[in-house]
């Protein structure tokens, strides 16, 4: 048997420190569901999802009970719907969204992602019809998440699509104004979107993937925070603990967290007879007290999140998480890093409220972590072009640095700086974040066309 201290530290991790498997996401290929008409296509989509995922939730719950570790979310990702519905019109895509919503409800999953298009170089007629359907489709469904990839390192940024994204975000928020613009929280714009990410709102089942796979998202910022606090408490003398030792602690703790996710994911995969895909070892916070990435910044030495040093701390945190997790898992993929979704993290939201965390600092921080400007509530008065331009800056970071970046902005209708928005549950709450220089980027957005792909040498 293992030593008692090893056993007890694992027990603490599970019981007291919010260790869970954040999500098990089943990716399902829907390309073979395209039929001669929309009704037949919808029928095939629903049947396929129910066939593959009928026992999915029950199996996850069974494994969760067996191993004593909660699986917080059970989700489905599908092939980007703009590909599945090639040739369909806007109204057809809304019908597909409703079909996906119904299938997700029937199999009992929390969210379904993949109402998506990939338009980093150009848009087909179908892509345009699809994008036009997004605001209504999300406003009329509950469980559907949408994402559009408008940029990659190899193709640059599709500036035509970018301009539409700004308006899409505005339309989404306004169509769901009675819920504080919640529709925009289910929509994310990507650069270098991975096809095996299990986290929402950006999960898709990429066309490079097998018929069906299971991807697991592990999290555990609470576990990392408590491990760091214990290490610091053991070294009360100034100078007796250095930054590299803190990085090592994060690495080792991530190893243990990742291992739990891999164990559960493989058990579910074996039980369902569905191929195991990847473990995505991202530090994803929840609004629960003690499950915050923002808290880790404070433990690591800045008194406010956003203070000078915050970007360096995040760089170390993100890297240490990758190092520990990659060694722990046979197959790592997805986003794999630290998330800083403002509304979903109580400490980050508080930093927005007291003015220490600004949009500009957040943008800088996203250079060194995954995923990007995530879950940020901004004034409802910010115009579509300014939103598109914020997205453009975030896309440029991803294009140049060969990394995934994304933007999920919520222009909360009728709210301004000083107000507060609350979506409840995992989506959280936050004060409205100020946006500087509103209305000064319209000429830039109006250019359209493409931002060319960057040179891949002379890196400096």
């Amino acid at each position, binding site marked *: *048997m*293992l030593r008692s201290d090893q*056993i007890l530290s694992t*027990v603490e*991790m*599970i019981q007291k420190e919010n260790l869970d498997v954040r999500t098990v996401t089943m990716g399902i290929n829907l390309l073979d569901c395209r039929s001669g008409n929309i009704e037949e296509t919808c029928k095939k989509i629903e049947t396929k999802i129910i066939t593959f995922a009928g026992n999915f939730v029950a199996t996850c719950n069974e494994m969760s009970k067996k191993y*004593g570790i909660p699986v917080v979310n059970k989700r489905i990702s599908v092939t980007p719907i703009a590909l599945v519905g090639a040739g369909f019109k806007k109204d057809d895509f809304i019908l597909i969204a409703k079909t996906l919503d119904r299938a997700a409800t029937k199999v009992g999953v929390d969210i379904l992602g993949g109402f998506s298009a990939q338009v980093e170089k150009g848009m087909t007629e179908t892509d345009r019809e699809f994008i036009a359907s997004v605001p209504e489709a999300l406003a009329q469904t509950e469980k559907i998440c949408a994402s559009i990839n408008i940029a990659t390192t190899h193709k640059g940024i599709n500036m035509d699509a970018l301009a539409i994204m700004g308006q899409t975000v505005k339309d989404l928020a306004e169509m769901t104004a009675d819920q504080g613009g919640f529709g925009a929280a289910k929509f994310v714009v990507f650069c270098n979107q991975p096809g095996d990410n299990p986290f929402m709102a950006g999960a898709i089942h990429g066309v490079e993937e097998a018929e069906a796979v299971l991807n697991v998202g592990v999290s555990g910022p609470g576990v990392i925070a408590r491990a760091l606090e214990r290490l610091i408490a053991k070294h009360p003398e100034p100078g007796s603990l250095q930054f590299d030792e803190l990085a090592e602690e994060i690495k080792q703790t991530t190893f243990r967290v990742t*291992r739990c996710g*891999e164990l559960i994911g493989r058990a579910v995969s074996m039980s369902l007879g569905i191929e195991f895909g990847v473990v995505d070892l991202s530090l994803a916070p929840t609004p629960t007290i003690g499950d915050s990435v923002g808290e880790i910044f404070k433990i690591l030495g800045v008194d406010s999140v956003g203070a000078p040093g915050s970007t360096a701390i995040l760089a170390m945190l993100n890297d240490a998480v990758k190092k520990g997790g990659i060694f722990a898992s046979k197959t790592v993929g997805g986003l794999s890093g630290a998330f800083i979704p403002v509304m979903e993290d109580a400490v980050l939201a508080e930093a927005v409220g007291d003015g220490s965390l600004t949009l500009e600092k957040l943008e800088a921080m996203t250079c060194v972590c995954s995923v990007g400007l995530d879950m940020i509530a901004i004034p409802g008065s910010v115009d579509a072009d300014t939103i598109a331009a914020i997205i453009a800056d975030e896309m440029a970071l991803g294009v140049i640095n060969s990394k995934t970046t994304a933007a999920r902005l919520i222009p909360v209708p009728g709210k301004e700086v000083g107000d507060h928005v609350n979506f409840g549950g995992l989506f959280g709450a936050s004060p409205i974040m100020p946006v500087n220089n509103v209305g000064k980027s319209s000429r830039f957005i109006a250019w359209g066309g493409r931002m060319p792909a960057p040179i891949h040498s002379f890196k400096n």
Partner: protein
Amino acid sequence: MRKQMIISVMSKDRPGIIASITGAIYKLGGDVADLNQTVLCGYLTMILNASFEESVTKEDLHAAISHIKTNCKFEVSIKELASGDTLETSGPPEDTYILTVQGPNKGGIVHGISQFCFDHNINIFDLATTLKDGQYTMALQLDLKTCTCPIGELQQKLETYSAENDLTVMMQHNDIFQVTNEITLH
């Protein structure tokens, strides 16, 4: 076919006990397989499994061990395995769980938990307890294969037991502890 014997030895601890015992076995042509030993409060206890030629008897082995020159007396017990007895294979079975118990020290903690296991027909493979600063900690490795109730119900009963006895009792699958503490991914 060689004869399998299980040998248990207890003695006051000193350097050279394992060398003496395994020396006596070696002189009789024995081959030591599994061995476990531990020291508690200055006393050593050891259990081992060794194989011998058919001609070697329990009495031969007793005599060989009692002829070891030593200041401390060995308390020895030997069992010969019948040919039908199977030796345990390595690795815990599928339904192995780890139960941890923590709380302020008081009489009857070990008895209470072991009685709970017995009441549900749970076999205890391994058990370690420590007492430090008035806090009692137990870690038990359990086989739930023959347990009389499903895992969900058992977890609920353990929760009730925790509350009634002012103890923190947790049970998790053995695999969790293996994957979080060992490099190799099984």
